[in-house]
């Protein structure tokens, strides 16, 4: 490893730091003012890349030259800025005071909508943009060739930092933005129209996302996966830098860029592991990142299960439901039984998330981590140890429980939005490990041949087995929630200081909740692996986490039984509608947005609420 190699790696790190900063800066700016973590920020980045990759070649045909190229990049960013304005007016404005879980879900709905729209508008192929005129030749640094476009990127980062700094310090708009970051109501009481201010901020944030995406076109082809990969990185940058802090984002991007450039030498399989270690370290020392401050919002932003008197006919009802479910194989065909098996598994998955969110107030956006760990734990036991199902499923449960213990240990110090973003990041890391560690996990192809023993092979038997296991697990989790442990979690959810002051060990309870929820989700994941016969990295992906959240939202977060109903409805709908339309994600996204806006109690919650209103 000589000096020139180190220099080139460092320059590479600077170039990716620059692009990351430009994008993350928009996210942190928008969060600072609106207090919304805009999941769709990555989609705006993707739209920026697609727009530039489509627009810039056309412009270059008309007049070839550097000026045209850069004008095209800025024009694409402006287009994305306009989309940001629409996003603010149509959606964000309506959810500023909603609980942060709903804000995240609604903006994730936008992510889904954009995924389908981008394919419809730009086509399914990746689009590689043109190389920048005037920067086509690599330059030589200490005898090594280095792309000159990367140098331009390295300069772009500080330019954007300077421009944003001037905007925030030297213009009235910037002063108002900084004031609103601290105290929105007071800004309004001084006669400032918040709506305009917020729309303006969203324009800036979206412009930066679009710029970040547009600048990528000569190096990376615009593709449909870039939205979620960039948003996970942006989350890390903003959290490490401190939410809402632009200089913090810059510093964090620099460090992460270098870590990725040199981390690849240490962990060639997953540079994200190094990034995660950095994040864990920073958050352990400074829970609010480099330049962040503690969140003022707390109690009122938490939603969770409500207390209500136990239904007297409850146990009877449960037994009746169980009997009906157990009788299903008498009438159902194998396909229906497969769907029913999956619904049971997903119900357990969603219910374990309910323990974290509804009971603990711990908004996890990475619950797929545990589902996937369970599935992979089982599949790896089969593949490498030739274990039977009765060993493999408990291994999956144990692996996921251990994952819950490890991830939980890092996360219990955090709350609110930091926790949501960190759980998501943790799941993304596991996703990257499963994807990149091909020798062990099979990479993208996953692991196949995860089948139950021959006698449990028929759909009806496996269905009954799943029913028995999930019923026992659900019963166990319910007992946990109704025990003092559950009450302690709910107390801590409603007011952490009060719970602590009456002597509850809040962090230990929360940690245990992560272990229990992780084990529950892991059990579901292991059952799922044997139901499908295979595992692949998508089980760990953001869409899987959001599926669980959608089931929760659909069923109702305030009701304990909500996730069960939600799992049934979502999975049945998906099974029925997805084959009929190429717009499933668009429909799902719009449904999530609609639910957040007009139906936030969910199905079961609404039924209960209606009954209580009448009472």
């Amino acid at each position, binding site marked *: 490893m000589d000096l020139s190699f180190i220099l080139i790696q460092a320059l590479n790190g600077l170039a990716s730091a620059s692009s990351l900063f430009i994008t993350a800066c928009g996210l942190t700016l928008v969060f600072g003012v609106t207090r919304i973590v805009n999941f769709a920020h990555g989609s705006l980045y993707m739209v920026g890349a697609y727009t530039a990759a489509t627009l810039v070649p056309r412009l270059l045909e008309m007049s070839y030259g550097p000026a045209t190229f850069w004008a095209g990049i800025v024009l694409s960013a402006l287009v994305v800025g306009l989309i940001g304005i629409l996003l603010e007016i149509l959606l964000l404005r309506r959810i500023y005071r909603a609980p942060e879980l709903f804000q995240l879900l609604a903006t994730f709905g936008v992510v889904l909508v954009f995924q389908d729209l981008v394919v419809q508008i730009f086509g399914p192929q990746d689009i590689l943009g043109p190389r920048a005129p005037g920067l086509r030749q690599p330059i030589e640094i200490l005898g090594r060739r280095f792309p000159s476009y990367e140098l331009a990127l390295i300069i772009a980062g500080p330019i954007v930092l300077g421009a944003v700094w001037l905007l925030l310090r030297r213009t009235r708009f910037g*002063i108002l933005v900084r004031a609103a*970051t601290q105290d929105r109501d*007071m800004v309004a009481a*001084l006669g400032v129209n918040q709506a305009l201010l917020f729309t303006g901020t969203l324009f800036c944030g979206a412009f930066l996302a679009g710029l970040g995406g547009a600048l990528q076109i000569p190096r990376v082809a615009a593709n449909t996966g870039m939205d979620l990969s960039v948003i996970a990185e942006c989350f890390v940058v903003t959290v490490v830098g401190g939410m809402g802090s632009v200089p913090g984002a810059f510093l964090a991007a620099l460090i992460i860029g270098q870590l990725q450039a040199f981390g690849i030498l240490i962990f060639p399989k997953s540079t994200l592991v190094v990034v995660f270690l950095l994040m864990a370290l920073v958050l352990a020392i400074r829970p609010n990142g480099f330049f962040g401050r503690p969140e003022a919002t707390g109690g009122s932003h938490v939603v969770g299960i409500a207390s209500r008197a136990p239904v007297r006919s409850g146990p009877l009802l449960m037994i009746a439901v169980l009997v009906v479910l157990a009788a299903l194989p008498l009438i159902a065909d194998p396909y229906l039984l497969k769907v029913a098996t999956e619904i049971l598994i997903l119900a357990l998955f969603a219910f374990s998330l309910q323990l974290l969110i509804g009971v603990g107030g711990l908004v996890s956006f990475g619950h797929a981590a545990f589902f996937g760990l369970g599935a992979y734990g089982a599949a790896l036991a089969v593949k490498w140890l030739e274990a039977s199902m009765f060993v493999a499923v408990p291994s999956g449960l144990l692996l996921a429980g251990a994952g819950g213990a490890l991830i939980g240990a890092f996360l219990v110090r955090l709350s609110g939005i930091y926790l949501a973003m960190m759980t998501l990041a943790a799941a993304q890391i596991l996703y990257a490990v499963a994807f990149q560690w091909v020798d062990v996990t099979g990479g993208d192809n996953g692991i196949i041949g995860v089948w139950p023993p021959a006698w449990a092979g028929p759909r009806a038997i496996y269905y009954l087995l799943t029913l028995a296991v999930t019923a026992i697990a659900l019963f166990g989790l319910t007992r946990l929630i109704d025990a003092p442990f559950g009450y302690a979690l709910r107390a801590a959810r409603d007011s952490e200081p009060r719970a602590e002051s009456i002597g509850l060990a809040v962090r230990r309870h929360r940690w245990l909740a992560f272990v229990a929820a992780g084990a529950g989700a892991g059990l579901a994941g292991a059952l799922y692996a044997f139901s499908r016969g295979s595992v692949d990295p998508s089980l760990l992906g953001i869409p899987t986490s959001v599926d669980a959240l959608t089931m929760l939202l659909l069923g109702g977060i305030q009701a304990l039984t909500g996730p069960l109903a939600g799992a049934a409805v979502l999975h049945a709908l998906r099974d029925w509608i997805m084959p009929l339309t190429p717009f499933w994600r668009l429909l799902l996204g719009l449904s999530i947005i609609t639910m957040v806006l007009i139906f936030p109690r969910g199905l079961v919650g609404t039924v209960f609420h209606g009954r209580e209103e009448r009472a």
Partner: protein
Amino acid sequence: MNPLLDVSGLKASYGRAQVLFGLSFQLEPGEVTALIGRNGAGKTTTLKAIVSLIPAQADRLVFKGHPISGLSTYRIARLGLGYVPEDRRIFTDLTVEENLEVGRQGARPGRSPWTPERLFRLFPNLATMKRRRGNEMSGGEQQMLSIARTLMGNPDAILLDEPSEGIAPVLVQAMAEAVRAMKSEGVAILLSEQNWAFAAAVADKACVIERGEMRYQGPMADFMNDEALRRQTLGV
């Protein structure tokens, strides 16, 4: 002459607990009115309800001839009704000058607009700390800045919540001077006070609130002279 601010039947609740039970009073142009009452009587709620920072109902809520009931907070402020909160709510990351900039609004016809220079003459100690950040200022200095910031919007009236609370005694006198100076510039002031001695020093009119209801309205001097009334309403 029409009152500048006309409030009648003002009601407000926090959740299910009603706090204001139909208050009625008027603020005349260029006049200082003190809302007097004990802790929890509903003074702060009254001020917040008027500027729409909390939801409220009123039979009549009119400022300069405009009905302002249900108007958003920023529109009420644009009409020229300023609000200085009890906890000052200085933007602590912003400098004194930047705080003033946030409050700036266009000039109003017939009056010379407030500028940072004029405000620094009114509050001389702010002039010595133009580039200081809000979080490096004392409570009294923050109070001055909060008032100055609201004046930058060239209001016709200011709702001033507990200006004498939590500041050094030596600054209370300066605060009283500032209130008189604002009055002499033609700004009407609705003042909420627990400290009736401070109110007596600056106010023309007294409105005494108890548990969300109006107990007394009249000239401040009469209230001060009538010891029986004071004992009955305030216990002092």
